[in-house]
């Protein structure tokens, strides 16, 4: 049977991708950030996941104003990196796992999570920057990836509770897939940031660190935090953090923290990163 072994959470700031693509990672501005990802680069080589279920959001690239799905699962064999207005990032094509994606779709919808099913979708920095951070600059991504896009652009996004519950249903879905697969679930976006209006540049380190603490060992209560708290305290774009609760819900109640990193700033944003493993039964 397929099993979920671990989770990764990380911010997905576009400027991080640009820094890698333009060879700026050794510059003093970026060097401390990339240092925070050295652990995961080694760890992932030992873990060798077969599939990553990657929770992210599209930033008005695959979905424009015409269609804004709350939860969209990518069921295609492959997904191209999006041209976000300055040419596509020079990163590999993302290969999917259509059979597992179809199984998850059936299971989640029958568990009352009404997904939008997508067979053609370009993937933007929300998905490709986490892959670059974890795998580095590679010729091909070393595993299959199921993109799972959550609306956090048009308010309101799904609640933290909804995301957490979806994660739990996702655990059930993946663990009932008959093939023997090592699956990781990643949650991306955040941490505190605001990209708009006179309050742009808001960073809330206390909020972010409390979120990290509670995601690890008080997720049940963290899931109850309403939207207004995110947008008020973590910025209008900080609400991306609800996506991390999908990852958390998919993991066991008891998890082992392998790595935790927090850094300000990357462009306009606070960067957070966690590596967690399911405790062996």
């Amino acid at each position, binding site marked *: 049977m397929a099993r979920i072994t671990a989770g990764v959470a990380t911010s997905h700031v*576009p*400027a991080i991708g640009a820094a890698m693509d333009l060879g700026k990672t050794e510059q003093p501005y970026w060097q401390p950030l990339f240092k925070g990802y050295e652990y995961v680069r080694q760890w992932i080589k030992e873990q060798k996941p077969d599939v990553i279920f990657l929770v992210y959001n599209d*930033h*008005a*690239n695959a979905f*424009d*104003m*015409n269609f*804004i799905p709350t939860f969209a699962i990518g069921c295609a064999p492959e997904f191209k990196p999006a*041209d*976000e*207005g*300055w040419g596509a990032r020079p990163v590999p094509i993302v290969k999917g796992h259509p059979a597992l994606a179809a199984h998850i779709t059936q299971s989640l919808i029958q568990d009352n999570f009404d997904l939008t099913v997508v067979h053609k979708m370009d993937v933007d920095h929300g998905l490709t920057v986490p892959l670059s951070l974890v795998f580095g600059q590679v010729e091909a991504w070393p595993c299959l990836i199921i993109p799972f896009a959550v609306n956090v*652009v*048009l*308010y*309101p996004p799904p609640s933290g509770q909804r995301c957490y519950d979806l994660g739990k249903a996702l655990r059930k879905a993946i663990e009932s897939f008959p093939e023997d697969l090592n699956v990781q679930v990643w949650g991306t976006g955040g941490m*505190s940031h*605001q*990209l*708009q*209006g*006179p*309050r*742009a*540049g*808001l*960073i*809330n*380190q*206390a*909020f972010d660190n409390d979120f990290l603490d509670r995601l690890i060992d008080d997720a049940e209560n963290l899931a109850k935090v309403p939207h*207004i708290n995110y*947008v*008020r*305290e973590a910025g*209008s*774009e900080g609400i991306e953090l609800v996506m991390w609760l999908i990852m958390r819900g998919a993991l066991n109640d008891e998890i082992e923290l392998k790595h935790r990193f927090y850094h*300000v*700033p990357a*462009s*306009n944003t*606070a960067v957070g990163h966690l590596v967690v493993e399911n405790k062996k039964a």
Partner: protein
Amino acid sequence: MTTKPYHDIPGTIIFDPEMAQLGYHLNQFANSLMQAANREKFKANERAYLDEWAMSEEQKQAVLARDYNQMMQLGGNVYFLAKIFSTDGLSFQHAAASMTGMTQEAYAQMMLNGGRRPEGNLYKEQNNG
């Protein structure tokens, strides 16, 4: 506009379904700039290109002036509007700085110093709320 709990957050416009309806054509115009051919057309004659879209005159003027706060007041969303400043060759940080009224340098320095602090920035003053 109805009163919503997030209307008392200072300096912030939440892109909700009402704003999305107001900004539909503005945002679709912005996203058309994801295609290189449209970027060229826009750069060659901004006014003529804008006139191809069913936007309000106010929205067009805000685009011509690159007044991002005004564009957002009129239903623009930053991820759509990003295609306009990308067409101009400008970064998210540059655009964000322009919305705060700070210089690019002062804004970048504020971010290096840990960003805009939450203290005093979470609720509008009772008087101007």
